[in-house]
């Protein structure tokens, strides 16, 4: 089988090979298109990650609050809802069902809806990790924080969360890499990210092997970069004298 990598240098309209592989004056080649699609993948993933981290830490934390039955129940319900519905179905729910219930959301782009869907889906998983991280700490740590006069908020801020965070870095790494990989479902609502690009370019050029290999390469590069960043973070926050959980995160 002959591989034809030149197809990336072709203009997307007239299919002629362009000098230097990048289109000029508003023309775009498949390479241009793929890099822009990569940009969308990265944007969806990073924004969803930000949302997932914030929501996940908040939800995971309120599930461990002492003496507050209702916040715990709310947190549990949140996790069960977002964890028990398949991601692709959630994307469609955000696209078709939610705007029907809240008309104000009708004007939202597919991009925003995908960020919300992926962010909330992942927040449930991060919330579960944050909860287990907090509950894995010795019970005396909460008492020690309270005993020196910390409020509940300060006990979480200065004692429980910094320690829980160190425990859950490895599963968080997996979750972060998962977000990149899961962002591929955005094609379902026409966000022109990598998977969408791959499907369309394959159809137009008939060069499925090259297209999918290139796209696969970019996914691997993205996920691996995240993995390296998280490993760096893990090393930076490691506490001397404290047993370090598995050296490299990610599965």
């Amino acid at each position: 089988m002959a591989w034809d990598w030149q197809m990336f240098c072709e203009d997307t309209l007239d299919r002629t090979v362009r000098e230097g592989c990048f289109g000029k004056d508003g023309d775009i080649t498949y390479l241009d298109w793929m890099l822009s699609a990569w940009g969308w993948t990265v944007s969806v993933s990073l924004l969803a990650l930000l949302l997932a981290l914030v929501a996940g830490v908040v939800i995971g934390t309120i599930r461990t609050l002492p003496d507050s039955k209702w916040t715990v129940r709310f947190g549990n319900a949140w996790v069960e809802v977002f964890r028990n519905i398949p991601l692709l179905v959630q994307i469609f729910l955000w696209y078709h069902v939610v705007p029907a219930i809240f008309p104000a959301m009708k004007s939202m782009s597919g991009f925003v809806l995908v960020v919300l869907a992926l962010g909330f889906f992942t927040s449930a998983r991060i919330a579960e990790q944050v909860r287990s991280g907090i509950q894995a700490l010795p019970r005396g740590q909460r008492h020690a924080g309270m005993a020196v006069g910390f409020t509940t908020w300060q006990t979480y801020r200065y004692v429980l969360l910094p320690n829980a965070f160190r425990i859950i870095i490895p599963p968080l790494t997996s979750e972060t890499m998962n977000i990149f990989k899961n962002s591929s479902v955005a094609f379902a609502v026409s966000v022109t990210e990598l998977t969408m690009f791959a499907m369309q370019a394959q159809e137009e050029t008939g060069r499925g092997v090259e297209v999918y290999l290139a796209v696969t390469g970019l996914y691997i590069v993205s996920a691996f970069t995240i993995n390296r960043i998280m490993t760096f973070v893990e090393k930076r926050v490691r506490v001397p004298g404290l047993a370090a959980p598995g050296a490299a995160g990610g599965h």
Partner: protein
Amino acid sequence: MIELKSVSKWYGSFQVLDDCSTRIEKGEVVVVCGPSGSGKSTLIKTINALEPVQKGEIWVNGTPVHDPKTDLPKLRSHVGMVFQHFELFPHLTVTQNLTIAQVKVLRRSLDEARKRGLKMLERVGLMAHKDKFPGQLSGGQQQRVAIARALSMDPIVMLFDEPTSALDPEMVGEVLDVMVSLANEGMTMMCVTHEMGFARKVASRVIFMDVGGKILEDCTKEDFFGNPDARQPRTKDFLGKILQH
């Protein structure tokens, strides 16, 4: 200074404290002992409301601890507590452990907090370890840092919850030495401990609790150790067992 009036506590239907009353005056050192499961640790933790109670009143320096309107963090900030398992903050250095609550709770400047914290560290003899993390210290050293952390807050009373029972035997002495010197300086202390040597040396009073959360004895040290005939049979039995060895 501290007063408990008919304090009772239940976990579900299981009673852990049964009508406990006692007073601790300023400068007193009170040792609480008794078999495991008798509610000693629970009793001491009710004083700074780490363990809430269902019945009775607890007063600390005129503050009603049992009152839901009481500002508990403020109360706890001047009641020092030392735990069985040290409970230093593992992600902070020794110095940070000593200063964080002074800065965040008492609103002291970092300079002031550091000065105060290091003075306390000096006093427990661990100045050389000020930049280490708790995980790099021995159990005895960690417990001395924990005492210094509590002292940095200028507490009006110190509570010790079995401070030596998680330690290797050769480290018990260094922690007890610190506690004895504190007691000799007039610190008000309540200590849950099985160290009867410590009780004999510095206690002003001894409280003996029995299974079911009842205070069986509450008397002076002299009475407790020197007058066995006046003791309850259960107390004599307990003392006989732990003093044999």
